[in-house]
Each structure stands twice: as structure tokens, then as C-alpha cells.
């Protein structure tokens, strides 16, 4: 890849992820985070909350599986025994007082896992996922301008229940269709292991549930990480621009312990820029030009090379005699230094 191209891509795409994670310019009203047991979304959600705190965004967590209000969350909405309509009402209610005092604030609404809602037996057939999600983003108070961004986590490994209506699209396809950006999370060590296998033309390894080993839910093991350098999570981002153009990029989010919570500069890097993922090749190329040092003269002078090219090799001669049965004969002119032994070398 041409270096100019890469630096261009780097600038653009890093700006994009920065905008998305920091919720600037409402770049993505609905972000879908696809995670799995191998790489849970918790670190990414933490990062969202951290950035929201830095830019004073109001954070609401709609908790389907979180037990206690995490740090940095302004409003915690428990969903136990609540109908979707109740949830919508409560989410808008917790923002009212804030909205009244400060009409133009931005807010971030996190849903920690949408799966329980989709799998619920209680939710009646009238439940409509698009309008449920839409009601969070759409301004509830026409007077106050609220830029709401919704981040929805979906656990990919939880099986979908059979559809009540076999003809309607599955919830996950609805979600991916609606979302303006889709973030798929991968464990960095797994990405490295899979890349290493692909580089050797081997089948990439699978981990955890995909191993289909009885009794194994999680495959992540520290030992795989090894030196500890391969920390962080890989973000596969698919973003739909307002223009309709799509962007696909892979990023690396370092672990939270690597930077202070107040850190302002962008910490996400392109995966391609990572030393472990893309080991630098340049040094090897330079090394190729140098000759190995030795006490022997391994090169040829021009004259030696010319003479070597002039040598006619025996089998060229052999091909001229095209008599039958003679093709394989070795023609050889005895030199005086040859010591001919009649008994041994009789042809």
C-alpha cells in the first residue's frame, strides 16, 4: 500500500472514530455494538462514558443486565418488569430536569444488552423495534434541542429465538439495517492468532463457544495473550456516512490502564498501524541489499561471468545427436588430467 494512501486513510478514519466515540456532531444517532463472550463490550462502553464525561454529555444507561449504577452514569434506568413503553417514558423523564436547566445539551443513551428485550416472552406481538429505538433519538421536547445518541449492545452469541412471524426480518438484521454505525468487537489476541494462521495459509483458529467443545463457554485465556503486549480490543467499524457512502475500518482501543481517565488526545489507533499486527517490513528490505560478510570472495568478476556464460553444458551437445537411443548419452572429452580406469569406467 502506498504510504500516502495510508496516511490519508489514517487521518480520515481516526477523525471518524474520534467523532463517533466522542459523539461529536451527532455523527451516528444509532450505533450498534456487536460483542461476544470472547470480547465483551464493557471496555468500549466504559470508553464511551469516559469521553462523555469529558465533554459533559448526559449519560443514561438502560440496564437489562447491569445490576448497579456504574461510575460516570448520570441516570440509571432499570428495566425489570417494565414494558418497552414504560422504559421510553422513564428514559425521557430522567432527562427532563437536566433539559430544563440546560436546553442544548447532548445526551448519550446506552443499552447494555438488547437481547433480553428481543427474547422476552412478555413483550407482546405489538412490539416494534424501530419505533422503540426511534423514540429515544427523536426529541421528546420539541422546544429543547437534544442531540441524543443511542448505543445499543447486542450479544452475538446468544441464540435468537424463533420468530413469531416467520416473514418479518430477524431482530438482528433489523438492527444492522437501522444502525448508522456498526461496531463489531474482537479480542486483539484472537485477531493476532487468526492473522498468524492466515499468514501461514492455515485455517484461522476459533475460540470459546465456536470451538464447540463440551463444557467450554469462554476460550479467552491469559496464556494466549502471552507477554501482555496484545492487550486492548479490536474495533471493526462499519459506518454509513450521511452521503450514503460506507466506511470500513479496523481500529485498536488500548486497555483503560494505559491512559489516564482525563486523557484528551485520541487513543484509538488503526489496527494496521499496530506493531504486533503489522510488524514493520522495511528493515528486512534494507537488509536484503547488504551482502553477507565472509572471508571468501563470493562474487564474480566480469570476465569470470562472461566465461561462465560461454560454457556449453554437456546435455546441450547430447541433444544434437538425434539418433534413436542416443538421447541419454553423456559426451565427454577426456582431458589429460583424467585418470581413466578401464575396469571401472567402461560404458
Amino acid at each position: 500500500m502506498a504510504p500516502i494512501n495510508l496516511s490519508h486513510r489514517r487521518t480520515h478514519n481516526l477523525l471518524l472514530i474520534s467523532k463517533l466515540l466522542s459523539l461529536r456532531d451527532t455523527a451516528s444517532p444509532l450505533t450498534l455494538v456487536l460483542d461476544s463472550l470472547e470480547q465483551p463490550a464493557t471496555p468500549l462502553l466504559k470508553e464511551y462514558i469516559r469521553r462523555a464525561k469529558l465533554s459533559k454529555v448526559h449519560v443514561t444507561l438502560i440496564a437489562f443486565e447491569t445490576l448497579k449504577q456504574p461510575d460516570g452514569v448520570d441516570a440509571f434506568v432499570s428495566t425489570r418488569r417494565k414494558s418497552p413503553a414504560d422504559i421510553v417514558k422513564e428514559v425521557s423523564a430522567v432527562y427532563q430536569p437536566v433539559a430544563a436547566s440546560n436546553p442544548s445539551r447532548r445526551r448519550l443513551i446506552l443499552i447494555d444488552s438488547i437481547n433480553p428485550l428481543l427474547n422476552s416472552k412478555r413483550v407482546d406481538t405489538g412490539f416494534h423495534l424501530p419505533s422503540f429505538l426511534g423514540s429515544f433519538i427523536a426529541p421528546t421536547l420539541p422546544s429543547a434541542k437534544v442531540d441524543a445518541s443511542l448505543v445499543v449492545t447486542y450479544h452475538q452469541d446468544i441464540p435468537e429465538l424463533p420468530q413469531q412471524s416467520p416473514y418479518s426480518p430477524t431482530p438482528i438484521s433489523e438492527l444492522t439495517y437501522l444502525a448508522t454505525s456498526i461496531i463489531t468487537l474482537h479480542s486483539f489476541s484472537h485477531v493476532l492468532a487468526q492473522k498468524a494462521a492466515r499468514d501461514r495459509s492455515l485455517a484461522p483458529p476459533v475460540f470459546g463457544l465456536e470451538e464447540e467443545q463440551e463444557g467450554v463457554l469462554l476460550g479467552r485465556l491469559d496464556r494466549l495473550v502471552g507477554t501482555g503486549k496484545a492487550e486492548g480490543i479490536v474495533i471493526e467499524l462499519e459506518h454509513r456516512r450521511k452521503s450514503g457512502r460506507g466506511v470500513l475500518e479496523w481500529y485498536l482501543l488500548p486497555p483503560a490502564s494505559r491512559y489516564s481517565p482525563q486523557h484528551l488526545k485520541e487513543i484509538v489507533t488503526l489496527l494496521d498501524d499496530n506493531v504486533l499486527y503489522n510488524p514493520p517490513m522495511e528493515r528486512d528490505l534494507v537488509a536484503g541489499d547488504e551482502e553477507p560478510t565472509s572471508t571468501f570472495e563470493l562474487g564474480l568478476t566480469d570476465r569470470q561471468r562472461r566465461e561462465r556464460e560461454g560454457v556449453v553444458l554437456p546435455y546441450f551437445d547430447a541433444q544434437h545427436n538425434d539418433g534413436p537411443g542416443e538421447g541419454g548419452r553423456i559426451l565427454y572429452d577426456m582431458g589429460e588430467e583424467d585418470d581413466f580406469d578401464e575396469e571401472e569406467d567402461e560404458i
Partner: protein
Amino acid sequence: MPSQPPLPPLLAPYVSNLPDSSLTLVSSILGATSNWLVLRFLHAALSSPSPNVAFGSDELQNGTKKKVVLVSFMRSYEFWRTEAKRLGLDLARLADKQQFAFIDGLSELFYAPQPTATSPSISPAGLGSSPRTTLPMRSPPGVVPGRSPQPAGPTVTGVRGNATSKQAEPGIAKKLHFSGRGLASLDALEKDISSVIEQQKSSMEDGDELLLIIDQPDLLLAATGPSMGIGATEMSEWITALQQHAHATVLTLATDAPLIHNASTSGGLATPIETEHAALVIGLAHRARSVMQLRTLDTGAAKDVSGVLRISRGGGLNVSEESLEEREALYFIQRDGGVKLFGRGES
């Protein structure tokens, strides 16, 4: 007493000092059951501090007293009492001291026997005994060894003769009954369990911690299922509700291949029992702080290895605040109930 320390040092950090509102999963399969590990949790929480406890567990005993509420859907109180005794835990005494409460989810969960107070032969004290003329004893001839006479002795038997209350049985705080269908029946169970928890809490001082262990709540889902209005979402909400009463929660769940992998592989052909089970277990693993997975040896059974224990971080672990070392070890249950835990290649 087992020749091994009741709590292997390798295991101690994982079963003791569970942080506040944490969820720990213990997963088991047909050939690698989890009871021994549950007993280790009991031991870590309940064993009285003594100078020669396994190192790693002695510093946790300072100050905070721990209480345990054990809800068992698969095994009787008798089993837990006998097995705990092998580790040096006297559950009956601990129950008297209000440190331990057992909730019986086996005996009368789905089918409560008719009140049979009229027949004299149903007194449980008479089980398996031959007709006798001596004084009634708690431990009749032919009872399993280890069932030593209860401290309550004859008085209890006398009381039970005309008592219809099911709570009269020593050691069992409550027997669960499932009735009706859907959320209402789950609510009733929740109320029963939480009332026992609250009762335990009433004698708690500041800083005391209550550990809730639910042994195989997945049975409840399997034996009811969507046709009775109970699905994975309802079950996990039920667990969330119980979690809120306790300091830390431990669940044991089955992760046999048909129950986990059928849902994802057979493409919509999975039966509801499989889909719901997988959704419950994987969903809980996303919420758990740690997942302790038990399985049999991949290479087949061995004489000196009972199975493999893999401890993984769950999706709910707060990575930025605490670290949990992932680990895989072999374990061996000795005949005396002791457990050896060792790495591969060690012994």
C-alpha cells in the same frame, strides 16, 4: 478430614472474597459435576478461622462475618450436609447459628405430596428402619453413615409427629413450591427465597456479607419452559432480582454440548429447551464476573484426573478496577472428598 487442605490454595482466590454485587458462574457437564466446587464456596465463606487454614484464605476472615444462603434445585439437604461434613463444616450447627440457610428446591418443587399426617409410618425418622421398640432416634438403623444423630434429638421427632408445617424439618429453612405459570410463579419463588435472605440479614452486622448460592436454576427453566410462559429473559430477571438481595451470587449451570451448541448450529431446528437454555447461560456469562467451567478431560477419562477447571473472566468483570487471572487446571476428587488441583503435567 481429607488429606488435602479443604480449599486448595490455587482455588482460594477465586472462591473467597467475592466483590460486592458480583456474579460467579460455575458451569458443569454430565460427567463433571459442580457440587465439589459449591462446597468449596461454602467452605471459603463459612469455615471458622483457625491458625492452620490454607494460606490465602486466612486473611479474609478478619472482621467480616459471612453468611450463606444455598438454594438447591437438584440435591437434597442430606447430600449437602453429608458432603460438607467431609470438609469439616457442620451445616446443621451453622444453621442454628444463623450463618447458613438451606432452601430446598428439590423435595416439593413440582409435586407436593399429600398431607399424610394420619399415617404414622410417614415420619421421615422412620425411613428404612425396621420395627423397633426402643426410643425414637433421629438416626435410625440403616441410615447413610455420616448422618449422625441430630442435636435436636427425640424432641424434634415428637414435634413432627403432629406438626403439619413443612418448615419443621431441621436444617431446611424453606421448601420451594412451583405453582401456576409464568411470572407469577417465579415471583412466588422469589418471595420465598428473599424472605429467607432477609431473615438472615436481620441478624447481620455492618460489614457482614451474605453469599447467595443457587444450585442449578437452569432446571427451573428446563422443566417449565416457554410453553409455561418462562423463558431465558424471565429467568435471568428472576436471578437479577435475587442478586439484589445478596452481597455476591454464585450460580451453577449446565453447559453440556446439546444444551449450548444445538441452538447455534442446527439453524432454527433447535428445540425451545435448547435455545432458551443457551440464551440463559450465555446471557448470564455476559453478566458474570468470573466463569468457572468444569469439563471432562478432552483425551478421555483418566484414573487420577476427574476433570478440567477453567476459570475465565466473564463479560461483567470490571476490567479497569480489578484483575482476575485466567487459569486452567486439572482437578482430582479423592475418595475422602479432598480435591487436588494441579496444572497439566504436574501432579
